[in-house]
């Protein structure tokens, strides 16, 4: 019990001194995760659409080669960025750019570098999610759109992607929550996120465990609120399950009043008697 009161006192002490730095860290983490996830989704959707442009033997050869090339490039992108740790990607980009351009080109700010890395990383995961989302939409939906004269782009934007988006909402939520936590590796390039606030606080106070407790509680709170909001958003997307009837439908016949010119159904006669009666 004694230890817990000590922990409480230490946390109060930490908060008094570094509270603002923790809070601004929370803000930076959330903004980075949100922007990174949104841009990542955008990248994912672009890759998903490019990946599913249909081509066959009748397609013009130049277009066919071009589409093949695009698929290869996307494949390489996905495999590279899904297959390497984000912490290394951050270092690679942040120090790679000035290295190759002899310091003439570098990231204007830590923010730009962090957003680029998180977006590209998320995009690699989302590309596959979006492809899965597009595949999961009933092929009849695409045929229905084509049958009223829509081209690939119109079919995608009006019919397929809205449904694919709904199908992959849980995955987008997953990615957002993962980003809230995993942006903590951005301290490696000096990004001032929530975890960076911890490193700064313990560097001066040496209160490692109390600060880690603050961090644990902080991250958990952020992710719980995020999951709650995502569920709410999913329900919003599904829309209301009821609708307003404008007037009576005169053509619908109630079951049993089958009405077809010159035809009856096998059910029109007397119902067969049940056994044992």
């Amino acid at each position, binding site marked *: 019990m004694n230890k817990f009161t000590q922990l409480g006192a230490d946390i109060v002490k930490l908060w008094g001194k570094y509270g603002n730095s923790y809070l601004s860290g929370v803000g930076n983490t959330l903004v980075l995760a949100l922007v990174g996830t949104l841009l990542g989704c955008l990248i994912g959707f672009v890759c998903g659409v490019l990946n599913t442009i249909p081509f066959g033997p009748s397609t013009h050869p130049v277009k066919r080669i071009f589409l093949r090339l695009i698929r290869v490039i996307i494949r390489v992108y996905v495999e590279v960025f899904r297959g390497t740790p984000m912490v290394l990607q951050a270092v690679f980009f942040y120090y790679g750019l000035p290295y190759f351009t002899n310091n003439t080109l570098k990231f204007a700010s830590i923010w730009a570098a962090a957003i680029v890395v998180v977006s590209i990383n998320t995009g690699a995961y989302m590309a596959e999610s979006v492809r899965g989302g597009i595949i999961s939409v009933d092929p009849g939906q695409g045929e229905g759109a084509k049958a009223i004269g829509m081209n690939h782009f119109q079919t995608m934007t009006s*019919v397929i992607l809205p449904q694919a988006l709904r199908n992959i909402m849980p995955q987008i939520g997953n990615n957002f929550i993962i980003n809230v936590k995993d942006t903590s590796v951005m301290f490696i390039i000096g990004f001032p996120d929530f975890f960076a606030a911890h490193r700064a606080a313990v560097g001066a106070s040496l209160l490692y465990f109390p600060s880690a407790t603050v961090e644990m509680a902080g991250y958990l709170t952020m992710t719980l609120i995020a999951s709650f909001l995502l569920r709410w958003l999913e329900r919003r997307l599904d829309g209301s399950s009821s609708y307003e009837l404008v007037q009576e439908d005169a053509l619908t016949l109630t079951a049993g009043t089958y*009405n077809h010119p010159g035809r009856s159904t096998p059910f029109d006669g007397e119902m067969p008697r049940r056994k044992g009666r």
Partner: protein
Amino acid sequence: MSGVEKHILQINHLSKAFGSNVVLKDIDFIVDKGDVISIIGASGSGKSTLLRCINLLETPNSGEILFHGVNMLGRGVSASRYRARVGMVFQSFNLFSNMTVLQNCMVGQIRVLGRSRPDAKAHAMEYLEKVGMAPYVNAKPRQISGGQKQRVAIARAMAMDPEVLLFDEPTSALDPEMVGEVLAVMKNLAESGMTMLVVTHEMSFARDVSTRVVYMCDGVILEQGPPAELFTNPRQPRTQEFLRRVLERQL
């Protein structure tokens, strides 16, 4: 030469194979304005594939599809612009599940034909009234019955003002008591002069409503003619056999 001009669709030597399975063999076929053509035949005879080839949802292996004399299988022909003029109603309805009934009937007019929103709405409502679905404009497809979905699908296709409307077994996925409401709508359309191509198992529709009946068997058109002739006096033994089998079950 002037004879070619008046056909809406003229199909020449159309063949289609899925791998080594030849589904359509050298089909020749003509559709004129006002024709109501029922395509009948056993399952697997190539009826649906013929319809899907006409709408370019399947790419034929060889042959020509002349639409007002222009080959739609030629280079540089826009399949989507052609499809906007040839409507299609599917067995599985294929209503857009992310839209309401009204949006389903408006989206093609707005995005493909470039109509304004009020125009599209007025036009959609006109056809939704005709099929008796005007009360349900705010419903999502998952909230209405199969027969209602198919009526909306017909309104969606008609709202594009197509020159020909293709029906791919429009009542096969419906419960018996819903077949009637869809057939009634189709009968009205036929009577209003719409050019229609209907793949169907509903022999009474083929007999009473269509102007021509086409019997398909093993990927070829075995016999075609006015319904009175084909139903009462089929020439081919296989047509006789098919009709005997189907009619004793249905009529």
